[in-house]
């Protein structure tokens, strides 16, 4: 080959790149290689990190619930002194935590800067001539309503309004006195003798009530109804006076609840007198109850926000919550002790409820202040402020700052409180709680209401029970159908049919659950309601019919039987099942007429079974449908991959195919089926749309198949868009999301590990 030989003096004709070019190319390739390596690694890590972030983020939103409460003294102010020194009867704080208010026994109200204590303004309540203040009463803090009682027997109700103005874009809050019932002192009850020893005012449904009691045990009250004239915008006040039956002891404290149905009087022995004042002229003493044991007296009592619960502090330092519990038999409500809180070391001197939730502060004789939360019955924090007794405490409406006035002290302590989520304790989320107005401790989920005084009920038990209930009923349908189907498809079915059946059932998995939920809610639920017997008939008729047709098939001559090869039984059964289904449906009205007086639904109600149209049965059917393919697919793989030599060995030894299934296949593949059921269960637990659409979404705690439920997932879907970011409710919804995540993750991981082990075992067999 002479043409290939190149003359030695012509190196330029070489097709190889020059060494420099090769070096360059090599560097570029090396760079590409490294770039691709690190680029891919970065992306890979990024993706894994993003997925891990889900865990981290959900945890981070939940952690604030677990943060311990803090309460500490952050400074003190000089007591804004009056011109004439006079003891403090009350202390307030506005909602921007800027303005404190000190109400003195001489009728002066001093507003001061809550940060440094300098006096902002001072107002005086107009006293009648030659009268002195003898008593003071207040309504719930959020109403900002007070009443002074004078020595001439008259009272002066007033309200403090904080008006906001924005001169030059800066917010300025000015406290102002308002007189909702007129600017002149008024007398209540007519001929009451002696000075008031207790006063109460309430702005309730239907008007104001002012009640007064004396050391002689007399109680009088006045009901003011205000009505605004539609045309003149003039306010008209009508008043009615009532005298209540006297009690034998001096009245120490009076309380009227917001519904204006009850008046509670407390005497010097710590006994509570519960009056029914619905009909004021015939006020009736319902009961007389000792709030504290013999030898102890009550030293401080106050309503929690909403005026449903009384917190009772005793001279022994005990603290307890009481409210009215309705007795089902008599229909009457009785004051009942609900729960106690961690007691103080000495007598409780003052109780200050929080504004928008059921917490309160208590101060005692030794100068200790404690922070409690009623619903979750916890004492969150105890703090020794000083040695002398606590006289008054004021907490701000946003519950972040409190002012404490001690007996005889020249200063007011500022307490900074960080207590954002007192509602969420372990016992409140998972235990039975006795909520206000309920007859006994219960599990309730009721997260929000329009009213500030609403007691939020955050029990996760109804939701968890609902979740399990929905998943269980779904599994009741899905597990047997899917596992049986999987065994048949993998082991008995002819390959030709399997090629059609397997993808068809797997296609079910791809069906959007919103469609299943829609069909279940709109089509299935009313259908089942009108044809209830089909369930029970179907449950009996279907297996029976299948067995009978099998028997019938074996009675046919062999010639006919051989027309259909083995492994096509399922195809033969399709018309049979359709027929049976049709029979079941058309028999339904006959059965209703024959045995259930024409309507099974009505019959159920008559025997005392509640029936909701959208119930666990419907959810079970629809969700069962949704998880069948999941279970089927995994279980089928497990059965199909049982090594052939095992089954063939069994058959060769003379076992029938069915004996082989029960003796060999099931034993070998059972871990796979177990993991299939676990994964199916995990899917049913987290399914949202079906439950949302096919259950009634009522958070009830029972396992009745004819009643609905609310699941964790559906609850998140319903409530999360509505709730305020960062609120307790928001975080509790995150808790439920985290519970779902961890539960399904653990379930799936366990299932995956079981499957991997099984795969290894198959490989070694």
């Amino acid at each position: 080959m002479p043409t290939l030989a190149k003359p030695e003096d012509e190196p330029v004709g070489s097709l190889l790149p020059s060494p420099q070019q090769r070096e360059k190319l090599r560097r570029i390739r090396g760079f590409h290689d490294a770039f691709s390596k690190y680029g891919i690694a970065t992306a890979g890590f990024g993706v894994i990190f993003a997925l891990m972030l889900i865990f981290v983020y959900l945890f981070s939103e939940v952690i604030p619930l677990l943060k311990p409460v803090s309460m500490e003294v952050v400074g003190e102010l000089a007591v804004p002194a009056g011109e004439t020194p006079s003891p403090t009867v009350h202390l307030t704080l506005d909602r921007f935590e800027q303005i404190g208010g000190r109400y003195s026994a001489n009728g002066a109200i001093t507003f001061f800067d809550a940060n440094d204590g300098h006096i902002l303004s001072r107002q005086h309540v107009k006293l009648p001539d030659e009268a002195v203040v003898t008593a003071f009463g207040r309504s719930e803090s959020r109403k900002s309503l007070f009443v002074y009682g004078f020595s001439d027997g008259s009272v002066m109700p007033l309200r403090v309004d904080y008006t906001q103005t924005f001169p030059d874009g800066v917010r300025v809050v000015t406290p102002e006195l308002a007189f909702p019932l007129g600017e002149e002192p008024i007398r209540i009850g007519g001929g009451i003798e002696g000075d008031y020893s207790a006063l109460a005012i309430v702005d309730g449904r239907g008007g104001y009530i002012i009640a007064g009691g004396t050391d002689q045990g007399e109680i009088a009250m006045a009901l003011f109804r205000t009505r605004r004239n539609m045309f003149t915008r003039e306010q008209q006040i009508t008043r009615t006076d009532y005298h209540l039956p006297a009690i034998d002891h001096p009245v120490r404290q009076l309380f009227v609840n917001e519904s204006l149905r009850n008046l509670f009087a407390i005497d010097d022995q710590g006994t509570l007198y519960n009056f029914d004042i619905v009909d004021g002229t015939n006020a009736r003493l319902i009961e007389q109850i000792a709030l504290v044991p013999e030898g102890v007296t009550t030293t401080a009592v106050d309503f929690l926000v909403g005026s449903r619960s009384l917190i009772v502090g005793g001279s022994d330092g005990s603290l307890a919550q009481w409210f009215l519990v309705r007795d089902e038999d008599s229909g009457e409500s009785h004051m009942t002790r609900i729960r106690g809180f961690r007691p103080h070391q000495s007598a409780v001197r003052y109780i200050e409820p929080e504004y928008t939730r059921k917490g309160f502060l208590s101060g005692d004789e030794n100068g200790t202040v404690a922070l409690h939360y009623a619903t979750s019955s916890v004492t969150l924090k105890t703090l020794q402020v000083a040695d002398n007794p606590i006289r008054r405490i004021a907490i701000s409406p946003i519950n972040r700052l409190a002012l404490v006035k001690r007996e005889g002290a020249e200063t007011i302590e500022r307490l900074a409180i960080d207590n954002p989520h007192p509602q969420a304790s372990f016992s409140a989320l998972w235990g039975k709680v006795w909520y206000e107005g309920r007859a006994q401790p219960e599990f309730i989920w009721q997260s929000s209401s329009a009213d500030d005084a609403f007691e939020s009920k955050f029990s996760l038990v109804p939701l968890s029970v609902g979740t399990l209930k929905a998943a269980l009923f779904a599994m009741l349908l899905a597990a047997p159908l899917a596992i049986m189907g999987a065994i048949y498809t993998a082991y008995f079915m002819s390959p030709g049919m399997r090629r059609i059946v397997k993808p068809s059932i797997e296609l079910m998995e791809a069906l959007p659950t919103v469609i299943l939920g829609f069909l279940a809610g709109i089509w299935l639920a009313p259908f089942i309601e009108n044809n209830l017997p089909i369930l029970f008939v179907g449950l009996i008729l279907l297996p029976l019919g299948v067995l009978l047709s099998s028997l019938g098939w074996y009675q046919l001559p062999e010639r006919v039987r051989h027309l259909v090869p083995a492994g096509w039984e399922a195809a033969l059964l399709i018309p049979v099942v359709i027929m049976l289904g049709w029979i079941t449906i058309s028999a339904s009205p006959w059965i209703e007429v024959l045995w259930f007086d024409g309507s099974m639904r009505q019959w159920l109600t008559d025997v005392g079974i509640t029936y909701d149209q959208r119930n666990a049965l419907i959810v079970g059917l629809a969700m069962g449908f949704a998880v069948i393919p999941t279970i089927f697919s995994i279980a089928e793989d497990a059965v199909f991959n049982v090594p052939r030599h095992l089954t063939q060995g069994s058959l060769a030894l003379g076992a029938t195919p069915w004996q082989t299934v029960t003796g060999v296949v099931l034993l070998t593949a059972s871990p796979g089926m177990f993991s299939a059921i676990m994964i199916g269960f995990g899917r049913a637990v987290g399914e949202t749309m079906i439950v949302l659409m096919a259950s009634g979404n009522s958070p009830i705690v029972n396992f009745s198949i004819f009643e609905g439920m609310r699941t964790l997932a559906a609850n998140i879907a319903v409530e999360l868009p509505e709730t305020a970011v960062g609120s307790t409710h928001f975080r509790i919804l995150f808790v439920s999301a985290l519970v779902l995540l961890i539960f399904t993750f653990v379930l799936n991981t366990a299932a995956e590990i079981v499957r991997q082990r099984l795969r290894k075992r198959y490989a070694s067999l």
Partner: protein
Amino acid sequence: MNKWWKSGAPWIWLHGGAVSISIIMVFGLLLLILVRGFSHFWPHPVAQITYTLPGSAPIEVIGELRRSETLTGQLMREAGAPIPEEQLFVTRHLFKLGNRDVTGRDFTYFIDDFMGEWRYPRDITVLERREWGDFLGQPVRLLENNRPLNLAADELWPEFRRRLERSTALVDDIRHIERNVIGRINHQLERVRLDRRRAELRDRLTPELEQQLIERREQLEAHYAELRHELDDLYAQSRRDTIVMRVAGGDEVDIRLDQIVKAWQPNAMSVFAKLGFYGKDFLDFIFGYPREANTEGGIFPAIFGTVVMVLVMSIIVTPFGVLAAIYLREYAKQGTLLKAIRISVYNLAGVPSIVFGVFGLGFFVYFLGGSIDRALFPEALPAPTFGTPGLFWASLTLALLTLPVVIVSTEEGLARIPSTIRQGSLALGATKSETLWKVVVPLATPAMMTGLILAIARAAGEVAPLMLVGVVKLAPTLPIDGNFPFLHLERKIMHLGFHIYDVGFQSPHAEAAEQLVYATALILVLLIVALNLTAIQIRNRLREKYRAEGD
């Protein structure tokens, strides 16, 4: 019999029965959706019946039969129907009566026993209206500017069709101006406001700029006034004609032609006319906009929203899923830790979708979105731009949700490629990255496609997380339009799945909307079944291919 029992045949048949039941359930469900969904568009005949309840005067009923059912007599007696004691069963028919504004009840049950002969007069007309649902009745005469037209009986219907075409064209013009032209002006006005606010925030609001902005605004407002005038004119024209209809019972009702979307006389239509009508109705449904709180009209925004969201999701999920899979399979050190990571990633596919929604709302919308707003869109605050649920966050959440699907599928594809191919490439001197990008990845493309399609199918059917991160009942604008930057990632979207939930369960006229929901479900099912079948096809072809190459 004994032999039969011992052979285990009953058990085998029972297991076979389970398969049959599952199969019947799948196909029965698909059939139900197909039949109900497709029948939505068919112009059903409208019957005229005299209905005589015992003890009350006969009434005339014009309506379309929706369904019939047989119930026990007892049930009906309890419901208050005057059924004789001895009668065991009662058949009742649900009729769609329309005329919601006239009678207040557009769906009513009638008991078969009290119904007279079913007649199908040819002149019964169904009017689909823009408000108040359908109207059923017989046309009496036409009015032009409130003066009756002198028309022969057989001229009435053709003349009505002609005039309806005219008014429909006018209404279309009005819609176009309102939706597109005025929409654009509003968008630009908002831009002017934001420009001004941005300049203010950055202390760059010079008098010249302010003058410029004012001029821009005045121009737009002038244009708007012009359009307003044009619109008033069009409105006046469209109100010219009115048709007088006689409803069941003989009362006459006036209906302005601009209130009518469509009119047909089902009893007079031939099969071919019906087929034509059917096709047109189907297209109107696909490409139309919803009306009456989504219970009427089309579902175009929902289809469009679903598709755009899924596309944005695919753009995010494909590169990341594929790269992660390549990393896990080709680069990462195989060991216990990697095994744990792999199981965790796979298991995320089984985590409830609502959990992803919660994560999306908390992390993407409130945390990331809030930060983006503060950094990039301070001029729009306090109205959030990205700090509120929207298209981008919905896509991102779904991308996270479907990542495991893509990773699993791609890894499977990579594992399936015979190592001989890889070794061959390396032996020829190719670097690892060259082997990967030029040999392995192209071979694994079908697997990636499968993964992507499965991801899309899952994403298109997912609703629960979307309710939290960006899907709404009614989005005023589409996420893509003619205004810069054309694709609006921050906008809220409509979605087929959510549409089903919303119309089926939250709408005031659930009964009237039922068929529409079936039709929507049908579209969604067709979309998803098609996607899945494609994925299965690709997977099968892939298996065949490697079986050939691996040998």
